[in-house]
């Protein structure tokens, strides 16, 4: 049978086991993994980091590095055995019949080659066509991935394109040879949400156009729901549940899947009435997996003697479409039972105003040409443009925006790492806008602290955890003696629910979530009044996110701290914040209570942002709004309204007001402000983006 007229499944993986061999031991990365991808089907692989989902993808490409090895099972691509295929045959298949798209677009492109040449290489190598023909095809594919001005794109180098454009080029490259299977490994993680939405949209359209089968790897359940027909949930090297999207999302049959869904903020979750339920414990290390069910120790349905007796096989769920689960007790568990609500808390009442910003501006001067700076004209980057808001005691104010919106600059000015160009920042009754951090009093410094985004970067890797917290105490002048400070440090560890033994551990011995807890303990060392949390959970796994978010909320309630929560993830913002501030290119475009911002009328940008956030709930109906193009550079902002280049409502504004004038901040309702030219009649016609379908 020739490969061309093959009609079975595109990819069949059966009982695949993969191990990595290190000096000390063999580390099993994937065990007993089976899945089938039919022609034209999109299969999602979901799981937390370290669960082996990328390893499966790499095994399909037979690219496991020198210490990875397939130790059992088979992978068949169009009926051909990939495991025992020779290197020569593999070279033929890779890139032509199976193509892979990685997370970092910049790392997948050769920075020294023009886009056109890189794209043309694919058919020149695999199909042996002439250069002219290859370039012609490249131009076709580039317009297929909806890039503007394909000829210019083909002539440019990768660094001249934005992240979203680069990822589109990588997708174009994968499509050049019309592969039968496309593997996408977290293709949008490095991109902003609105760009992510556009890329996902593109992948879906291309799949229809080319009929390619897709293996889509992601940790984001919402994205998988958007893209795939079927999914496979992985935990600690095993597939725990596999089935169609509808079955797995609505009629899940594995405790891990259920726990995963309960730990992500879906519309309707509320920090006071319906808090998230985090999964207790930690992900087991590959060489410390428990006997029997890997999820056993963290499972609320665990039954000793049965769940930990022997390895659990996959069971087919009767009456569902190819739905399998790796749970012994799946027939006994009442899946419809509502979760036990641990505790509900009173909604905190915001107190007096702690932090007040008035017309804050931060401009940077950038020499156009640094080497000959004198002759070149100076450019002004307006990182923050007239920021005004106030935050009260015990309140959570979310600052939402994508990269380049000025939220980091704002944080820097607030912390005193930069001074404001003009405007005022009032902390209680003190002006701090022009006091750099060296000149601030210890009180002010310890009163405004920050929790950082990247858990792997937030702690000094060569200092023990305890030492780092004690250092913060020393600097903030807490405690009289070393003894005092050590005790205070242990109390702080208690506060963030870490065992006291962690004081003597090095950061590398901690998991991401634990590191983030230490970061929180450090921020609260001096009794911080205002804490800026810069995407504190976005780099953590879903199951850990809920726990860390909860912890932050709890400490906030206890200390009546004002929390400035910077995030681009609107689901979590909706879950935990009292008020929301939406920023775009240095401007605050919308400010209001959470309910006001999340329901119409919206600012057009808020509307697009809401639509872009993937929501892992089959009952939610979303209006699809895909923003064209990328976020303009802050170096070169558009004239008039900053959002006018991508706004879909622009035509509703009379004249060329949007292009010429920055809109004023308008009061829509008590405490709801919006920066838009749209007349009231148009705003009133806006429909909600997210609708929850009746059950």
């Amino acid at each position: 049978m020739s490969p061309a007229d093959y009609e079975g499944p595109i990819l069949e993986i059966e009982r695949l086991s993969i191990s990595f061999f290190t000096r000390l031991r063999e580390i099993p990365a994937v065990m007993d993994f089976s899945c089938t991808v039919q022609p034209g089907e999109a299969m999602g692989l979901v799981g937390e980091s370290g669960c082996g989902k990328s390893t499966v993808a790499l095994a399909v490409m037979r690219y496991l590095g020198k210490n990875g090895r397939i130790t059992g099972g088979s992978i068949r691509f169009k009926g051909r055995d990939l495991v025992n295929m020779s290197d020569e045959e593999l070279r033929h298949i890779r890139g032509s019949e199976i193509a892979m798209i990685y997370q970092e677009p910049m790392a997948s492109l050769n920075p020294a080659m023009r886009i056109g040449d890189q794209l043309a290489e694919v058919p020149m190598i695999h199909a042996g066509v002439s250069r002219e023909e290859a370039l012609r095809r490249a131009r076709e594919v580039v317009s297929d991935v909806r890039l503007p001005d394909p000829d210019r794109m083909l002539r440019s180098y990768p660094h001249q394109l934005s992240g979203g454009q680069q990822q589109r080029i990588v997708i174009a490259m994968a499509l050049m040879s019309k592969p039968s299977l496309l593997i996408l490994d977290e293709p949008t993680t490095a991109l902003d949400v609105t760009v992510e939405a556009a890329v996902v949209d593109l992948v879906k359209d291309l799949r229809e156009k080319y009929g390619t089968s897709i293996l889509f790897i992601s940790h984001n359940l919402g994205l998988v729901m958007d893209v795939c027909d079927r999914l496979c949930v992985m935990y600690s090297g095993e597939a725990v549940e596999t089935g169609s999207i509808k079955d797995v999302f609505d009629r899940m049959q594995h405790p891990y899947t259920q726990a995963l869904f309960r730990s992500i903020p879906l519309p309707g979750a509320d920090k006071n009435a319906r808090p998230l339920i985090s999964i207790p414990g930690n992900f087991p290390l590959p060489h410390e997996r428990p006997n029997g069910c890997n999820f056993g120790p963290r499972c609320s349905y665990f039954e000793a003697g049965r769940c930990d007796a022997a390895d659990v096989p996959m069971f087919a769920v009767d009456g569902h479409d190819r739905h399998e689960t790796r749970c012994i007790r799946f027939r006994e568990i009442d899946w419809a039972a509502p979760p036990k609500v641990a505790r509900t808390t009173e909604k905190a009442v915001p107190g007096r105003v702690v932090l007040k910003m008035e017309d804050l501006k931060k401009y940077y001067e950038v020499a156009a040409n640094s080497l000959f700076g004198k002759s070149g004209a100076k450019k002004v980057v307006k990182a923050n443009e007239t920021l005004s808001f106030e935050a009260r005691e015990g309140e959570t104010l979310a600052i939402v925006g994508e990269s380049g919106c000025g939220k980091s600059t704002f944080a820097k000015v607030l912390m005193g790492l930069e001074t404001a160009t003009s405007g005022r920042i009032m902390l209680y009754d003190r002006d701090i806008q022009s006091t750099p951090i060296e000149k601030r009093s210890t009180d002010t410094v310890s009163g405004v602290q920050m929790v950082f985004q990247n858990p792997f970067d937030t702690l000094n890797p060569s200092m023990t955890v305890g030492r780092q917290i004690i250092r913060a105490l020393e600097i903030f002048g807490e405690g009289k003696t070393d003894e005092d400070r050590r005790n205070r440090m242990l109390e702080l560890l208690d506060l963030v629910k870490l065992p006291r033994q962690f004081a003597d551990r090095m950061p590398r011995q901690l998991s991401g979530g634990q590191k983030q807890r230490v970061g929180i303990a450090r921020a609260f060392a001096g009794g911080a009044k205002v804490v800026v949390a810069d995407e504190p959970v976005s780099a953590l796994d879903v199951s850990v996110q809920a726990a860390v978010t909860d912890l932050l909320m709890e400490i906030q309630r206890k200390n009546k701290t004002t929390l400035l929560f910077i995030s681009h993830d609107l689901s979590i913002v909706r879950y935990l914040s009292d008020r929301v501030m939406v920023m775009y290119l240095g401007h605050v475009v919308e400010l209001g209570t959470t309910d006001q911002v999340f329901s119409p009328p919206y600012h057009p940008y808020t509307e697009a942002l809401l639509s872009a956030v993937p929501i892992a709930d089959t009952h939610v109906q979303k209006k699809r709004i895909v923003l064209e193009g990328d976020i303009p550079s802050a170096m070169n902002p558009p004239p008039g309204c900053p959002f006018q280049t991508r706004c879909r409502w622009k035509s509703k504004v009379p004249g060329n007001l949007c292009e010429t004038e920055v809109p004023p901040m308008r009061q829509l309702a008590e405490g709801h402000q919006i920066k838009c030219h749209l007349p009231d009649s148009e705003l009133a016609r806006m429909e909600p983006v997210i609708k929850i379908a009746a059950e």
Partner: protein
Amino acid sequence: MDDIGWLSVTGRILWQFLPVWICLAVTFAVSIRYKRSLGLYGKLFDSTIGMIGFAMVMFWVFTAVFADMVATHDVLSQISQMKNKPPGTVVPAGTSHYLLGGDHLGRDVFSRMVVGSRIVIQIAPLATMFAFMVGITIGLPAAYYGGTLDTVLSFMANLILAFPVILLFYLLVTPEIVATGLPQYMGLVLFLFPILFLVVLVNSRYYVKPQFRNVVVGLIVLVGGFFYLALVSEPESAVAILPRRLDFLSVPGNILIVFVSVVFVNSPTVFRIVRGITLDIKTRDYVSAAQTRGERPWYIMLWEILPNARGPLIVDFCLRIGYTTILLGTLGFFGLGLSPESPDWGSTINAGRKLLTVAPHPAIFPALALMSLVLGLNLLADGLREESLKD
């Protein structure tokens, strides 16, 4: 007693090195036994390359320590009958052999090679360490503050790097220049850096505990300052600060010159490495965290950035000792700095080169010694780099 053949020469040499073998065996046995609890040093024993390199380096370190036991003859005594005699020749008195033959003045090549290791092992690591202190103390602020300071410092580093090294050495040892005290003044500045470094290191961390800080800084200034004065002050020269009675550390003028020049040409390279690593590390969140809790710049540089730059710096340190060793050899070869009768490897190679066609052994053995030490250092650096990347 008769002349002996190659086989017994080899046997006797191996026997002479007995104390070195014992120490090597003990070091390896202990290190391998406890390698899991020894950090990066312990990990070295997982890499064959690293172990070979470490063994070669430690061989010469122990040889330097036990040079008096290993050497068979006095390094300066000449026996005229032994001029250019081949390896294994018996001395006229008939009591012993010149294991690796005699040189052009009838001195024992083996003993000179063994004792010569002392000079290298003493100067090379110490000079490299000073170069690192200087490079780190300048490189950290250059990268951390950036701007004009960085531009000026980098320009100066480039200036030194661009100047021909050999010419620089010739200039430094010219008697007229030595008489002006220039090398000593340079030493005055360069030797100040370790003290500065330590004081800033302690102060930046402990300024929050003033009593403790005062005691430690005071000790450093007193002890370090005394060593510093003793080191730089030389009676009857341009710099004679300390009275003779107190000047317990006397460094021969020519050694000082060699030392100063080696530090001087090495520190700009270290500066660039430190600057590069710092530029990377200073963007990390833990540096921002330190800034937002109001830490002072030097604390951030020395306690937040430097410890995390240690991996590449340790590797470079090993490599740089190797370069310094070669540099010392070069200096000796050109007859710069050290006295002509000094047994260091560079000088011996230079002395042997004139009769290379007649008697190659006086030049070849020190050359082999030099090569094995540098090779060992390079392998050690490779091993460390390899192991520090693994987890």
